[in-house]
């Protein structure tokens, strides 16, 4: 136990004197969170749209006004030339085009059905999809308005089905609310796994590991002696990132903070344990870095549901996502932040994550041999 204390103290003494450590541990997370929080957004606003108004009537201008008034669109040009559409979309000046046919006003006045055309640039399928949805709802709104005006006074309303959509937990569908808790999970993984991966192998490179190996230091003491100091750094990062998320990005923290904190510690067991494991199987810091990033972090990020929803993955791939602790932590963080739910909602994820962490730490401990066979 006493040996452990000396080991931990030594680790902090080294950290304090390493000039590269402070920015990596404390500045990078905040900067990354800021960048990812702002840049990693799937919100669609001010979609540039070009309008071909072949009708040039007050009725058609009324429809255009509807688009101009919407925060989701900005009308870049109103033209009567069909050929402009292709040019504008190819040059990316407009992402979408609305074509109002000649005779649109007449048709409305004479109560005849009429069709308007919407063209969207599918090369950015995500934005196109969102833009199309906004456009159809605007047009549907307009159609409803027209129908309402026509209704003779006192006439019964025509039966129609209207969907009233309510989005729970993130009513504005702000992608920041979805992304920032995910970024917390990602940042913790990158920082602590890399720190862990570098730690033991650095001593291997310097030759101090061999010196430790001729002392009576026990294997678990070495593992715990590395785990605890880096765990403290991880805890500081958790607090820092949660503070930035809540105070700066104003992400609502609806659930329990102590629960979030406690489960973050379990998550740190996983990420640090993984780092230590990588460290024991590597011969150099460079190799440890490559192994951690390419063999573990990238696949984990892709398969965790951080970017692609797990439900959308092909069935043969889905089972692999259960091997990834990031998957469980994402469910937990998003659940606590956005839904305000507790253990009753994700106790299975929490347990699996705990098991993963303990498992990988044991693996790392057994891999760190004091006597080479």
């Amino acid at each position: 136990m006493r040996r452990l204390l000396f080991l931990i103290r030594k680790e902090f003494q080294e950290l304090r004197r390493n000039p590269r450590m402070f920015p990596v541990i404390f500045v990078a997370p905040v900067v990354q969170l800021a960048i990812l929080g702002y840049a990693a957004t799937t919100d669609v606003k001010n979609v540039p749209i070009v309008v071909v108004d072949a009708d040039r009537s007050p009725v058609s201008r009324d429809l255009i006004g509807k688009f101009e008034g919407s925060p989701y669109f900005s009308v870049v040009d109103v033209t009567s030339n069909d050929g402009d559409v292709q040019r504008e979309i190819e040059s990316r000046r407009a992402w979408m085009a609305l074509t109002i046919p000649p005779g649109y006003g007449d048709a409305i006045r004479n109560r005849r059905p009429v069709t308007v055309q919407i063209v969207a640039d599918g090369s950015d399928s995500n934005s196109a999809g969102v833009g199309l949805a906004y456009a159809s709802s605007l047009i549907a709104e307009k159609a409803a308005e027209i129908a309402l005006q026509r209704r003779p006074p006192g006439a019964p309303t025509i039966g129609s089905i209207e969907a009233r959509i309510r989005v729970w937990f993130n009513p504005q569908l702000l992608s920041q609310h979805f992304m920032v808790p995910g970024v917390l999970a990602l940042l913790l993984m990158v920082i602590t796994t890399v720190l862990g991966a570098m730690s033991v192998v650095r001593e291997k490179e310097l030759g101090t590991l061999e010196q430790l190996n001729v002392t009576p230091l026990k294997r678990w003491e070495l593992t715990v002696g590395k785990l605890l100091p880096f765990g403290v750094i991880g805890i500081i990062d958790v607090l820092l990132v949660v503070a930035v998320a809540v105070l700066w990005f104003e992400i609502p923290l609806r659930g329990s903070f102590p629960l979030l904190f406690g489960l973050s510690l379990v998550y740190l067991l996983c990420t640090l344990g993984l780092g230590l494991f990588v460290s024991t199987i590597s011969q150099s810091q460079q190799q440890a870095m490559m192994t951690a990033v390419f063999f573990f972090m990238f696949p984990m990020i892709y398969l965790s549901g951080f970017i692609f929803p797990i439900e959308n993955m092909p069935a043969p791939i889905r089972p692999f996502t259960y091997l990834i602790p990031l998957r469980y932590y994402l469910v937990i963080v998003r659940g606590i932040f956005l839904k305000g739910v507790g253990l009753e909602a994700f106790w299975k994820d929490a347990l699996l994550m705990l098991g993963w962490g303990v498992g990988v730490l044991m693996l790392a401990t057994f891999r760190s041999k004091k006597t080479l066979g």
Partner: protein
Amino acid sequence: MPAVTVRDLTRRFGPFLAVDHVSFDVEQGEIFGFLGSNGAGKSTTIRMLCGLLKPSSGTATVGGIDVGRDPEGVKRRIGYMSQRFSLYELLTVEENITFFGGLYGLDDRTLAERRAFALDMAGLKGRERTLTRDLAGGWRQRLALGCAILHEPRILFLDEPTGGVDPVSRRQFWLLINRLSESGVTVFVTTHYLDEAEHCHRLALMHSGRIAALGTVSELKNVFAKRAVVEVRTASPMEAVRALDDLPSVEKTSLFGTALHVWLRPGQRATEPLRERLDGLGIHAESLEFVQPSLEDVFMDVVERAGGTAA
């Protein structure tokens, strides 16, 4: 009871035999040297004795404990210092001492005593707060030695402890080793510096994983007792080697620094045939005199007889 007992100790790395059935004893308080070129198996042997590497076969006991069965038991009882002076560069002198003392489980009082001792021994009093990476090689080496003996081990293993250190520091280092040995500590040291080997009470010459010769320094030199060695100084040593090699009274010749060493066959004591042959071929010899064989002669001889070349 010997401090170290080694019987048929063997270590393979795949098909490569790094240490090949080695047997020897090291007595309590002895400075025991392991001499050999790079790759001869010295470090592999010392790493097995320290419990860092499992023997492939054979046995070794250190301080009465079987290294193969209880490597951790051995580790508690020995001090180890390697060629790389494995200190933490980002820690100060004092922090390094405290850290290693703590790992060896010293209590606060003992630790304070031993810290003072190590600082004194390394000559680093007053420089406790210097970062280790700012120390010159010789200081660092003595600090590493100090850290390795904080727990007062009875057996000390030094793996090429003086590599990359200046001659003055090396001499100081050997004074410390002698003092430790006088206080009863067994010192097991590997080196490839022949002059250093002269400090050892007994020497094992290692070549290709085997012990090619073992004995005190004078015993090893006595291998040559019956054969005289003549040192020939000449401006054209290569021609002289060719000229003297096939003389009937000459066993062999070898280049030795800038001079030439000529081994005469047992019983031969005359230098005249050498002089005549050189004069006959017009090779001018500045001097031609008998010399005491050095350890290097012994080493070269051993290596040659083992059929290899020294690195």
